[in-house]
């Protein structure tokens, strides 16, 4: 058997496609940047189904990759299973927080709750009708956390703002997202807060088509730039690329759980059409958050 030098090698398993215009793609791109900058050997497997998780992770561990990143909340158990078998390999549970008490397993994610809070402040300062809605594919734990802090921010600005949330159950169906957005706009919701991967494009399109009946506060991606969304007031972007870079360069392999928020450049607020008053409020919220004055669960 030929001996391959595996020092400085990293592998990533993705729950979706590496072209999903969301966390799979950007984290993967972060890993690629690390690879080209630092000469790291990389491997990946996209679209890993539930049944093949352990098999794929184990195969990578066997091949000697030093760091194995599981990109997605569904990988936790499987990473832990293989981590127990390969104590010398580092495993990173990306988009998760649990390290399963294993020394060779770390967790890393961006702060969904901070993102939600900032988005909420933006939305609260954008609404005219006092009705704000969030659209997502499925409420996984992260989305739920984001929703809760978003709601809290709305309430902190104006307790009378009405909030609703809706699931399209498909992260790539742009048409369904478009129709779901229309449904919300028709019901008088004038600020939309999508957390929807590639299907978010549908929300952007629908808000643009609404003839100024509604505006959008983006999350994850910069909606104004990514989707050319004219009605974006601003976006809370997730620096998945940076996270992927950090994970790949081996800076997060300490066996701890990392939540990268504003401080670590994990999320940032981008302003497009937000009023100066709104911008000020967001900036204040940012400093309050870093000062720990606002109590949101992480």
């Amino acid at each position: 058997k030929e001996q391959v030098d595996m020092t400085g090698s990293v592998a990533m398993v993705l729950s979706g496609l590496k072209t999903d215009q969301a966390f799979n793609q950007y984290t993967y791109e972060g890993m690629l940047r690390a690879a080209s900058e630092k000469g790291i050997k990389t491997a990946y497997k996209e679209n890993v189904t539930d049944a093949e998780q352990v098999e794929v992770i184990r195969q990578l561990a066997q091949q000697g990759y030093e760091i194995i990143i599981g990109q997605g909340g569904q990988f936790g158990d499987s990473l832990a299973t293989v981590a127990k078998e390969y104590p010398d390999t580092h495993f990173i549970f990306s988009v998760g927080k649990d390290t399963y008490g294993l020394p060779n397993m770390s967790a890393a994610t961006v702060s969904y709750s901070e993102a939600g809070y900032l988005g909420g402040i933006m939305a609260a300062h954008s609404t005219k009708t006092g009705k704000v809605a969030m659209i997502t594919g499925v409420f996984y734990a992260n989305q739920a956390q984001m929703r809760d802090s978003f709601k809290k921010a709305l309430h902190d600005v104006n307790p009378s703002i009405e909030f609703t949330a809706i699931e399209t159950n498909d992260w790539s169906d742009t048409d369904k997202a478009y129709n779901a957005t229309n449904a919300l706009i028709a019901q008088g919701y004038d600020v939309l807060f999508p957390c929807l991967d590639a299907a978010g494009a549908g929300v952007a399109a629908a808000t643009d088509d609404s003839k100024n009946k509604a505006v959008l506060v983006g999350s994850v991606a910069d909606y104004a730039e990514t989707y050319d969304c004219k009605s974006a007031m601003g976006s809370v972007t997730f620096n998945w690329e940076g996270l992927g870079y950090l994970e790949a360069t081996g800076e997060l392999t300490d066996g701890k759980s990392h939540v990268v928020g504003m401080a670590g450049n994990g999320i940032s607020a981008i302003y497009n059409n937000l009023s100066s008053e709104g911008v000020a409020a967001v900036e204040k919220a940012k400093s309050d958050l870093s000062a720990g004055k606002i109590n949101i669960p992480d």
Partner: protein
Amino acid sequence: MTYEIILDWLQASLRWSAPLIICAMGEIFAERSGIINMGIEGIMLCGALCGVAVSYYAQSQAVALFACAILGLVLGLIVAFLTVSRRTNQVVTGLMINLLAIGATNVIFSVLTVMRHKRATTFGALFPESMHRIPLVGPVLFAQPFTTWIAIFIAFIASFVLYKTRWGLNVRAVGDNPQATATAGLSVIKLKYQTLILSSIAASVAGGILTLASSGYFAAGGMTGGRGFIVLAAVVVGGWDPMRTMFACMLFGATDAAQLRLQTTESIIPTQFLQMLPYVITVVALTIMVKRSRVPKTWGAAYDGRRS
């Protein structure tokens, strides 16, 4: 307020069902000729990508839809060759076409990086803005994008073609008794090729419209989300009749639109149960309609070309 919500719901139901109707009209012809084109889900997906890509590069929706039609023709030929000439099992063939389509669109889309974040030009409403404000019909009908009207128009055309033209007669005959059709001097194989190509074109164009009438974006990972299977169900619910199938599609559109709207009400029903609604309604509709529909006699069977 509630009044507006209802109007909006009706509008959404129609808009949502437009691609389904177009796809279903083609499928009716295929199934009437005895062949289940199970690959429409995948073909629709290919059409969705083709529509967005061509519309982006050519800056013309007409060209985009034409390209979808050509793509449908090619895919239809493949399906027809397999199921008609090679007499493969129609269900496996369709399922594999779907698998192939998901893979192919993912691969192709990953190559088309330049257009990934660009919105293709989409269809506008057919009627002027002023007409949208007419009470009741304004928002429900006139505010519809142009494609909704096309879909309804196509349904009427389909009905006309199926019942009032020579070719429609041939199609109705071939699915019920291919041997008799052959002895009447018609080519069974040719007819089946024609209907399969037609249904594939319809599916592909429906896919194009799916993206071009709304978001103008394609997304990798199977963005048609099972619409092809819904169409297959709608055709059965509609008893292989264009008008009734159109209503079946609209029923499905209406329940899905309703389900999205019900999610915003603070109800104790978990969202997952609301999301089930369209599928449950379809099964109920299927049960209610079963007495009134008559399956084409050789539905799903390969044509042997010999005496029966």
